């Protein structure tokens, strides 16, 4: 069974972070919230494993 990793897993973390921030450029708070929600749903589907998603939710709540 797959598990969540909290170890570094992105080859270029600065690039990924920049892309995330850039996606919100010029958006209102509401538009940003909506974008984040769509992004989370898309990433949940990409993960495709409820166990990993539950672990991610727990890690985010710590």
């Amino acid at each position, binding site marked *: 069974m797959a598990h969540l990793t909290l170890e570094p897993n992105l080859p270029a973390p600065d690039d990924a972070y920049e892309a995330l921030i850039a996606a919100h450029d010029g958006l209102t708070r509401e538009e940003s*919230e*909506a974008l984040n*929600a*769509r992004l*989370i*749903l*898309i990433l949940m*589907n990409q993960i495709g494993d409820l166990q990993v998603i539950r672990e991610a939710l727990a890690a985010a709540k710590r």
Partner: protein
Amino acid sequence: MTYQDRYPLAFRLYPYARSADQGADQPAHHPVTIVGGGPVGMATGLDLALRGVPVLVLDDHEGVGQGSRAICFAKRTLEIAHRLGCGPQMLDKGVVWNRGRVFHDRDEVFSFDLLPEDGHRYPAFINLQQNLFERFLVEAVNDARAKGAPIEIRGRNRLTAMEAGAEAVTLHLDTPDGPYTITTDWLIACDGAKSPIREMMGLGFEGRVFEDNFLIADVKMTADFPTERWFWFEPWFKSGASALLHKQPDDIWRIDFQLGWDIDRKAELEPARIRRRVDQMLGPDVEYELDWTSIYTFQCRRMERFRHGRVIFAGDAAHQVSPFGARGANSGIQDADNLGWKLAGVIRGDYPDTLLDSYDAERIHAADENIRNSTRSTDFITPKTPQSRVFRDAVLHLAAHAPFARPMVNSGRLSVPAVYDGSPLVTPDALPGGPARSRPGAACPDARLSDGSHLLDHLGQGFAVLNLGATLPPLPRDLPVFSFDPKAEPLLAERYLGQAERALYLVRPDQHVAARWAACDAGKLARARARAEGRDT
């Protein structure tokens, strides 16, 4: 006192008549008394009476109330109604439908197909006004009584007080001729979501209340919309936060509008105001009449236990769900189906009293499943927090172009019968390769047989064995066997064998699977039956 009706009647079916009990010196005694003449009370009474148990049904009205109310009846309800004697009437009158479409604004974002499967007597769903279902049930009661079934309905008999004792329950009733008192061994409370019996006994009803109002506008019109369930989130016609359109018999269409929490109920029920909403939806040129209107709110909650000694709760009295998913009336009929054979056997002395505790276990399991599904639908339709709303809107937005989001669109997950997985009555599965749908605890899937009959016609009296090519152990005389050659019965092979070559099923009187094996001896069969009868814990 004057005897006031709480609601107007659609059909006056059992006018008040003074009974001999009312002049008796001592309170008359009845083995089973059911309070509440709705679909669950009538189905429970009919099931018990057909099993030979004398039943008294008390209703505080003289027939069926107006309004379509519940309109979607599932296959399992129709199968149970068939056994009770009114399935064909429901199917003849009902509107069969298979497809649901869900729109956001103008765009279709999700659709589902109930996938009609061959070889069933009944379709996945029909739409039928609840008052017609209730009328068919009362007619089935009258037919059964004419053939000798021991059931009596007393109209305008209202329960005003009760005492639940260890040996019997005392019921104080009011009638147009004044009060009288009876006693009963068993009281079945089918008195609805506001259950007066629950109140009189001081029992809780815990759960969630949803802060939203929905307007029902049943309209009569000759329209050529397809017989599909159409649901809109944020509809382009702006008649509500969501809307539903669904066909009923007699050119009646159910229209539902989501109004929000802070509304002026009285103003919203004014016909002119309702017509404005309907006109926006249907367009200005469509002619229709308002047939029935109502505003409802809803809750998802249940009692902690459904059995309290000699008092047993069923239907909305025991559990309540939101209407999305058609899980209210359909689950109540399954309560009746689960309770009937158990209580009849306990009264006959065949089964121990503790078998009734399994009604609690099995139907609470089912209620929790219904509440879970209905709560999820409601959270999607009526998001309870700003963040929940943001995610709901994100799903609807994504569903237009991302297929993964479409199955998350939730306008109701339709009722399917609960599988009693983990029930104390069920023997673990011993049929490797057997289909999951007919596993122990499941309601037997129907199948048309080569002689033209249906499997479920043969099941449902007492316990029975279904044999598909297995070697039969010696069987007790009171356990009928239905043997079929799986090579000649492809539907049975598909639904009961799967990858297995042969199988033996033990089926309960409610047509649920108690146990199944690839091979079985007399000892295993006897143990499984004892377990299913509550004699082995």
